C-alpha cells in the first residue's frame, strides 16, 4: 500500500509509463519522494520508490546517495546554492557565499532552526557568463553581489514567497546575465527540488 497522496501516485504511474523499463523511473520517483517528504528523502521514501520500480531499498539508496540533489537530511523551504567554481570564484563567488552564510547564520551544508533556509556552496551551475551565480530552489539569479545576496536572504525570511520565481529574483537581486533571458516566466519552484512539469512541482507566481 502506498503512503503517497493519490495525486503523487498518479504522477508516479504516469512517469513509469514514459520509460521502456520501470527501473529507469528511479530518478524522477526519488524527486516525488522528496516532494512527499517536504524536501527530505527519508528511508520510507526510498522504500516506497523501491516498491514502485521493483528493486530493493538498498539499490534505491545506492542510486540516491550518488547524486547531490537528493537531500537525505532535513532541508529548508528555501535551498540557497552559491556557486564557487572557477568562473564564479574569479568574480567574487566566495564573497557572495560568505555574505549568505553570515546574513542567514547558516553555514554551508546546514539549515536554520526554523527550517526556512538551507545554504550550500555548489560546483558550476552553468551560469558562468553571469558570475557570480546563486540558485534558490534551483531557480537562477545571475550577477549577484555580496550586498544583494544579503538582501536576498532578508527577502526570503520576510516575504516567504510560495513560489520562487527566477525572473522576480533576477530583477530584485541580480545583475549581469550569461545571455538575454528575453522571455518572462511566471513559473517557479514550490520547494527545495527542481520545478518540472512531470513532477508536479511547477508553481505559478500569484498562486497561494
Amino acid at each position, binding site marked *: 500500500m502506498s503512503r503517497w497522496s493519490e495525486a503523487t501516485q498518479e504522477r508516479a504511474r504516469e512517469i513509469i509509463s514514459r520509460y521502456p523499463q520501470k527501473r529507469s523511473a528511479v530518478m524522477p520517483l526519488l524527486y516525488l519522494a522528496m516532494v512527499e517528504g517536504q524536501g527530505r528523502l527519508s528511508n520510507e521514501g526510498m522504500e516506497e520508490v523501491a516498491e514502485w520500480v521493483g528493486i530493493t531499498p538498498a539499490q534505491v539508496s*545506492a542510486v540516491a546517495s550518488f547524486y547531490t540533489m537528493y537531500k537525505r537530511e532535513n532541508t529548508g523551504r528555501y535551498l540557497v546554492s552559491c556557486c564557487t567554481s572557477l568562473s564564479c570564484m574569479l568574480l567574487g563567488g566566495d564573497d557572495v557565499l560568505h555574505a549568505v552564510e553570515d546574513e542567514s547564520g547558516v553555514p554551508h551544508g546546514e539549515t536554520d532552526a526554523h527550517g526556512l533556509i538551507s545554504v550550500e556552496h555548489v560546483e*558550476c551551475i552553468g551560469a558562468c557568463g553571469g558570475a557570480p551565480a546563486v540558485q534558490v530552489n534551483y531557480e537562477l539569479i545571475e550577477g549577484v553581489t555580496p550586498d544583494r545576496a544579503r538582501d536576498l536572504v532578508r527577502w526570503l525570511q520576510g516575504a516567504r514567497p510560495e513560489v520562487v520565481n*527566477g525572473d522576480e529574483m533576477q530583477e530584485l537581486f541580480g545583475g549581469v546575465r550569461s545571455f538575454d533571458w528575453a522571455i518572462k516566466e511566471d513559473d517557479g519552484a514550490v520547494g527545495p527540488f527542481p*520545478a518540472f512539469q512531470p513532477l508536479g512541482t511547477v508553481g505559478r507566481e500569484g498562486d497561494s
Partner: protein
Amino acid sequence: MNRPLVVTRRMTEHPADSHTMDRYLATGGYEQAERSLGLTRDELVEEIKTSGLLGRGGAAFSAGLKWSFLAPARPSYLVINGDESEPGTFKDRQLLERDPHQMLEGVIIAAVANEVHHAFIYSRGEYPKPARRVQAAVDAAYEKGYLGKGIFGTDYDLEVTVHLGAGAYICGEETALINSLEGLRGEPRLKPPYFPAAKGLYMQPTIVNNVETVSNLSHILAMGAEKFTELGHPMDTGTFMVSVSGHVNQPGNYELPHGITWRTLIYEVAGGVPDDRALKAIIPGGASAPWFVPEIHLDDQITKDMCAEAGSMLGSGAVIVMDETTCMVQAAERLVRFFAHESCGQCTPCREGTSWMEMILRRIEEGQGRAIDLDLLLDVSDGISVGLGWPPKMTTICPLGPSAVSPVLALRDYFRDEVNAHVELGGCPLKLAEVVV
C-alpha cells in the same frame, strides 16, 4: 569578421518568442524533420558525414561517423546529452531555453537516421528552466503529431522522454549517462565492450548526441552539407558555440566560425580584459583542458587541430579568461576540487588522487606548502595520467581523473615560480601584497 549565425539566428532575430511552436513553424520549422522521413538511413548518415559536423559535447568526433557505427540490432535508442556541467560551459542552457524546438527537430532527424522509436533528452538537474521549456516543446510537438504514433502522417512512431539529472557531472560521460537513465548509479562503463553504438541503453545500440550537435541538424539538411562545409574552417566546419567567462568585459555565449584567433575572441568578441589588465592564462575548452598562456598561444587559430597541436582541446567550448590579479594556485585548486568532488569513486587513481591533489594545492595556497610539494603533486598526477602527456594515457575507466591533471600541468609549465613563491613566502604572493598596500 564574417559571423554567420546558424543555431542562434532565430533567438537573435525573434528574441520574444523564439521558444514557441508558432515562431518555429513561421521560420521554416519541422520542414526538415518531415523531409528526413522520406530519406533512407544511408542518405542521412552520408549527408551528415559530408557536412563535417563534429560532436559539440567535448570529444569533437564526426557526428556522421558516430551514426554509421550503430550496430544492426533493434530496438535502437537515441539519447540527447544535455547534462552540461563542465565548469565554464553554459551554451546548451541557452540553446535549450531559447530554441527548444530547434533541438527537438534535430532529435527527430537523428532518430529517423538511426531507426530509433524512443529518444531521451537528459537535462541536468540544476537546469529546471531549460527542462521546462523542452518539456513544453515536446508536449506541443505531440499535439501537432510530430511526435507519438505515426509522426507527420507516416507510419513512423517516435516517443520522446525528458529526463532530469540530479547533480552529478560524471553523468555527462555517455556511458555514465546511460547507467543513470537505466536507474543505476551514474558510473561510467568500460569501453570496450560497452560502446554505446553496440551495447548502450538496455544493452541495445544507442546514439548519444550533444544538444548543440543535434541543434545543427535541421540547418545542415536545409542548406545542404556542401554549403555547411563552407562555414567556418575546412577542417572544422560550421559554427560553434563558445561560452566566454572570467575576466572579460563582455562574457557570454558567442556563435562563431572556427578559425578565428584567441586574440580576436578575447579582445574583439568578448570586449577585452577589464581595466586593461594584463592577460595571464586562458582555459580553451572547459575545466578539463590544459591551459594556454598569451605569450605563446594568443595568435593561434581556434580549431580542433590547432588546439590539439598545442597540447590542449576545444572541449566543450568553454573559455575561461584569467587576468594578472588571479592566483594560479587558487585557480588550479578550484578546478581540482571540482574533479575530486565529481569523481564517481570507481577507479582508485581518480578517487584517491584527485583528493590528494586538492589537499596539496590547498596547503600551498594557504601558506603551508613545502618545497617538494610541486613534485609531489606531479607524482600523484602521474599516477592518474601516466607520463603527463596530452592526450592523457589513461589509468581509469573514463577521462575525469586525467582531466584533473590539466591545471597541474599549467603550474608545471608556466607558473612554477608562482608556486615556489607561495612556499617561500608562506602564502599567496598576491594576497600578501594586498595586505602590505
